[in-house]
């Protein structure tokens, strides 16, 4: 006997039987007593925030306090001018290579400063609130983080509060009330604003909301369809780049788009026609804003594309047979990308590979399985100096530092929502 699909279905249908289960009420009794998890407790919600492009330090030069009283006024003024200029120069440019500064890691609701060499950690934001997901501003003077909103609040999900603090943890300020749909967050290049995803005012899915730190009113940019993967376009941040989140609305036009921060100038970024449901996910831009990466599902597996926005040329990064590759982020110098490889053993690993496609790259750190809601390696990104990758290994609940020279990774902190961010400092 040979078996065809129809016979197989009829066999399975017969075997499954047609009796209605009589235990639904038991289940509903149990669920009625079960408390739901808050939406933000899923690590997948914090997929690649651009860690490399967030943080920097304000390290002021030693003032010339020992100058003697004999120095003439003119020289003193000149020196003060020199100090002022030097101070400004010590802030790094918003994109590109920088020195590594302070390393912040969240875990179990607190945020710590961690010394990767010694493992010593110091609480930066702690207390009764549940705080996580620090992300340094590109100039490194402050960081944003997420705070579980106080419960009960009369709703099933009280949501998250977007908050900021100075680099040393002082001056904590809540920028929003509890937002159940708060997702993603990206600092503007000048550190004056934060773009994040929030409930679309009309229809399903997310819209982009921009909040200014000076307290001026927030702006919601609703482009008429659900959006995802929003970021400021380097190097000037004149535009925001995002993809349409068609899975939240199947009528959405699929593609990668750019729009000015005031909501004007919406335009489509040329990319090849889509071929499958996973196309245009994982949108990320190079530090010079000229290259864009996204993933599609290809014939069998996720593949990574690199698009040259100057020419429109689109090419695939090479990948070993049978593997899937997804979620790329450019290195600070724009020469490499870090991404996830899903290999034939069904395990994920971090890979660093050259943007020019000259090799399939090197694998870093331990393997990780598929998690409850997706890959169990999340929120990976580059150190400012481009020598290491920070990543969350959610199945181990650990934030890890992975040198790209292949040397031994460092476990930074273990705990729920263990997410790390590096401060950028100006190059000497």
């Amino acid at each position, binding site marked *: 006997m040979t078996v065809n699909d129809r016979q197989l*279905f009829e066999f399975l249908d*017969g075997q*499954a039987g*047609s009796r209605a289960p009589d*235990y639904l009420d038991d289940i509903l009794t149990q*669920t009625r007593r079960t408390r739901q998890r808050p939406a933000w407790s899923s690590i997948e919600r914090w997929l690649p925030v651009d860690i490399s492009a967030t943080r920097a330090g304000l390290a002021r030069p030693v003032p010339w306090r020992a100058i003697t009283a004999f120095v003439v006024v003119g020289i003193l003024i000149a020196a003060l001018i020199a100090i002022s200029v030097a101070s400004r120069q010590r802030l790094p440019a918003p994109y590109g290579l920088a020195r590594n500064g302070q390393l912040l890691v969240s875990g179990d609701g607190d945020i710590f400063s961690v010394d990767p060499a010694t493992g010593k950690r110091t609480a930066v934001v702690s207390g009764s609130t549940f705080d996580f997901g620090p992300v340094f501003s590109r100039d490194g003077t402050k960081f944003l983080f997420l705070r579980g909103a106080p419960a009960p609040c009369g709703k099933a999900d009280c949501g998250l509060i977007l908050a900021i603090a100075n680099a040393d943890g002082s001056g904590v300020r809540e920028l929003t009330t509890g937002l159940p749909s708060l997702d993603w967050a990206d600092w503007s290049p000048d550190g004056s604003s934060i773009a994040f995803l929030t409930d679309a005012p009309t229809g399903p899915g997310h819209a982009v909301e921009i909040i200014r730190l000076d307290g001026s009113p927030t702006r919601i940019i609703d482009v008429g369809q659900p959006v995802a993967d929003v970021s400021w376009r380097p190097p000037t941040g004149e535009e925001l780049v995002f993809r349409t989140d068609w899975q939240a609305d199947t009528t959405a036009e699929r593609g990668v788009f750019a729009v000015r921060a005031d909501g004007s100038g919406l335009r489509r970024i040329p990319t090849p026609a889509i071929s499958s449901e996973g196309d245009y996910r994982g949108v990320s831009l190079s530090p010079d804003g000229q290259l864009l990466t996204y993933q599609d599902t290809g014939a069998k597996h996720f593949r990574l594309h690199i698009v040259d926005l100057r020419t429109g040329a689109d090419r695939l990064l090479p990948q070993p047979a049978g593997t*899937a590759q997804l979620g790329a982020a450019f290195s600070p110098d724009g020469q490499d990308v870090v991404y996830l490889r899903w290999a034939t053993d069904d395990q994920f690993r971090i890979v660093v590979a050259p943007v020019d496609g000259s090799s399939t790259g090197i694998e870093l750190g331990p393997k990780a399985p598929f998690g409850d809601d997706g890959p169990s390696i999340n929120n990976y990104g580059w150190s400012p100096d481009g020598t290491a990758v920070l990543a969350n290994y959610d199945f181990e609940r650990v934030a890890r530092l992975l040198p790209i020279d292949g040397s031994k990774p460092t476990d930074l902190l273990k705990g729920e929502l263990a997410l790390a961010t590096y401060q950028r400092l100006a190059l000497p």
Partner: protein
Amino acid sequence: MQRELVERARQGDHDAFASLAGAAINRLDGAARLILRDPEQAKDAVQNALVRAWRDLPTLRDPERFDAWLHRLLVHACLDEVKRLRRHRMNVELTELDVEPVADHASSAADRDELERGFRRLEADQRALIVLHHYLDLPLPEVAFALRVPLGTAKSRLHRAVQIMRAGLEADARPGIEVTEGRLT
């Protein structure tokens, strides 16, 4: 309609969840019985899957993916059941399902018996593949999503599972095969 129910259930509306669960439980129970071949284990798996669905529903990013997500929870609840029994070193035997006679116009009783034997030869995860694709009629990308494997892996595993079933059926149907000095003649 379902999207609205999912949205409401995500916001903590238990009545909305009860409607979703009521609409899904027949097919979940059927699928679990096929994967586990044991009605009591199937009941436990469905219960675990639905309780987890309620608990984690607020974390579901896309309400349109509710069905696919629920199928994934079910498959993993089934595989967890298999692991749990293995851990307790219980002798898990594939039992005959207590199935009510169902009219079968396409296959003879003999064919059905052969299919039953072929199906029994499969491991639980292989049965899950067959059930997701051929019983729940999920397209392969959804099967891959449910099983947390790449699409290519899902395709090759499904092909392999069907091959195993076919090989068993063909072996059952082939008369008089003798094994001589390790070779089939």
